[in-house]
């Protein structure tokens, strides 16, 4: 059996992390291809529905990444995001999803290498956690 390859959906802020991912690419920093990036204008605009939808669809992990606290294009987006993530964690806990499946990071536009590191770490952790329980349940009847 092939090794389990987790799928990560990353919500990246247009100004910092999306640029960091771009930088990682143009600098040819190697990182696992398990991540799918959704560009948002600000980490503060990530609606919990998007995260739930991603897990519902069977993704193994979600990353929400944006600017550092004092670096936000919209002044306090990261703070709003942190508050929302705290609430999301509670909901995910009730749903039986492990804490490690939702990751919140601050990656500045210049931190391409750090972005790659975050993805590597996440893939490693998700491999340990195994496939999302939602996916296995949905796939079980087949």
């Amino acid at each position, binding site marked *: 059996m092939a090794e389990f390859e987790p799928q990560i959906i990353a919500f990246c802020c247009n100004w910092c992390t999306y640029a960091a991912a771009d930088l990682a690419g143009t600098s040819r920093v190697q990182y696992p291809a398990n991540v799918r990036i*959704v560009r948002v204008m*600000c980490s503060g*605009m990530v609606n919990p529905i998007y995260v739930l939808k991603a897990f519902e*669809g069977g993704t193994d992990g979600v990353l929400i990444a944006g600017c550092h606290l*004092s*670096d936000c294009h*919209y002044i306090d987006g990261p703070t709003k995001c942190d508050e929302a993530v705290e609430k999301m964690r509670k909901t995910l806990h009730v749903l039986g999803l492990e804490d490690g499946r939702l990751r919140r990071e601050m990656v500045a536009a210049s931190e391409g290498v750090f972005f790659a590191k975050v993805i590597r770490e996440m893939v490693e952790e998700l491999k340990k956690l195994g496939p999302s329980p939602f996916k296995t349940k949905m796939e079980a009847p087949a």
Partner: protein
Amino acid sequence: MSEVTLEIDGKKVTAEEGTTILEAARCAGIEIPTLCYHRALSPYGGCRICTVEIFRGRRSRLVTSCVYPAEDGLVVNTKSDNVIRDRKVLIELMLAKAPKAKAIQDLAREYGIKETRFKTEDPDNLCILCGMCARVCEERVGVSAINFVGRGVERDVKTPYQGTVDIDFDVCIACGSCASICPTGAIKLEDITAKKPAPILSEFEMGLDSRAPIYIPFPQAIPNVATLDRSQCVHFATGKCRICEEICGADAINFEQEDEVIEIEVGTIIVATGYDQFDPSVIPQYGYRRYDNVITGLEFERLSCAAGPTEGKILLKDGRQPESVALVHCVGSRDQNYHEYCSRVCCMYALKYAHLAKELAGADVYQFYIDMRCFGEGYEEFYKRCSEEGVNFIRGKVAKVTDEAITDEEKGKLIVVSEDTLLGKMVRVPVDMVVLCSALEARSDAEDVAKLLTINRRADGFFLERHVKLDPVATPTDGVFIAGCCEAPRDIPDTVAQAEATAGKALSLISKGTVTLEAAISTIDESICHGCGRCEEICTFSAPKVADKDGKLVSSINEALCKGCGSCAVVCPTGAVSIRHFTQDEILAQVSALTEAK
């Protein structure tokens, strides 16, 4: 008020009714000597040196001009033989009373009196009992801490029951008016009160000089007008005084003036709020405020200024010229314990001070630096010039400044203890003066300003530009620009360049007259909006506003303010808010597509 016409020394003089002869004469430019008269005090007629001769018909009288009213048709002679004879006797009497008073000696010389015929009781006495001190204290200060006591030959100026009763009657506020108004220097504040007068330290002179409660903030102040310090003004303390009001020829003093809020509608705002100086007393080992001659760079700047408190002389606190000066770089900057950033201007001003200390005081100069950062045009050349002038450069961070001498050479000096990293050993340098090149830091009220204008601050507290390279004077809020040290420490050429850039940016907006909006901003579906106001609460830019529309509460977005961050869409309970190009449906579709694609 009706006017009266009188003749003084053969000159026709018109004066308002109720004025005294003295005032009428002074208005006409005729000088009458006085000792107990002051225009801010009620006339007293005590010294009688202002005696003049008045004529009515064939009768003449000698009167004191400071209290005698100017009357219609009066003929006055201020220099008649009778007047001069009378004054001479008065001067002789006062000379006997206060032989050492300079004001009396001057008068005596003027009237050709060499010595007094009267007996001198107390050769050290200075008081001539003019009563100015008592009057100013009662009438103007409103405290009445001193007054006359005794009668006849025992008359004296004293505080209540001075020395006779063991009760504290010290009502004096140590304002010093009595001592400053005394014509002979008889009044000494320390005789009146045990309280020490606290000079009001001038903010502009970095506390190296004092100022009056009413003052012009600094030379070249804009606007160049006086301001009144309510916390120090005697009028606001006792309700009296108002001397400045009477003295001011322009009638500009207004005690009733209050702060007022003026609202101006503008399209652009330039923030140029500057910086605060890092307080070096936070670093106890440098001894600032503990040792007199440890000063900050700004204090040295005032000392070296020709218009400053020492008129450009570099002086120690005891008035000596320093023989050696140490300049300590990076005080509170490039230091993990305080500020990690480089304060940028210190290296260059330290070089300037080194040059000035050599030129103005002929002192030996020691620079204690981490790195010399001479980055601008002509700066490296100036560094070289200072090196050639014989400034000593010691590479190392100063460990402490102390006055504990271990050799005879160090006695009575401040010793700067530092590592010399080029020699690889500790050095102790005895100097007379230590100048701390204190860091520039963000203003203490920067947070309030940032909140007010919805602009951002870096971790070090300075305001954040929109983009460090591509948009260095703009902020996240359109139309708000930043310039100068409120954004980061910078020197004068950089500040001027930035200020011009900011002015240009502001002008380009003004001349265009319109603003281009972001495309991806919030929209509200009014048909499902409840008007709950959560979007209004969360928005940093105050873009959404809930208002009544056709009898229903709905939110609407001010498109000029909205930046499109999307936080309102997250909190909206009905999904009425969405961001153009980032609607909920669009993102959910992306997420579904990505999860299904596997």
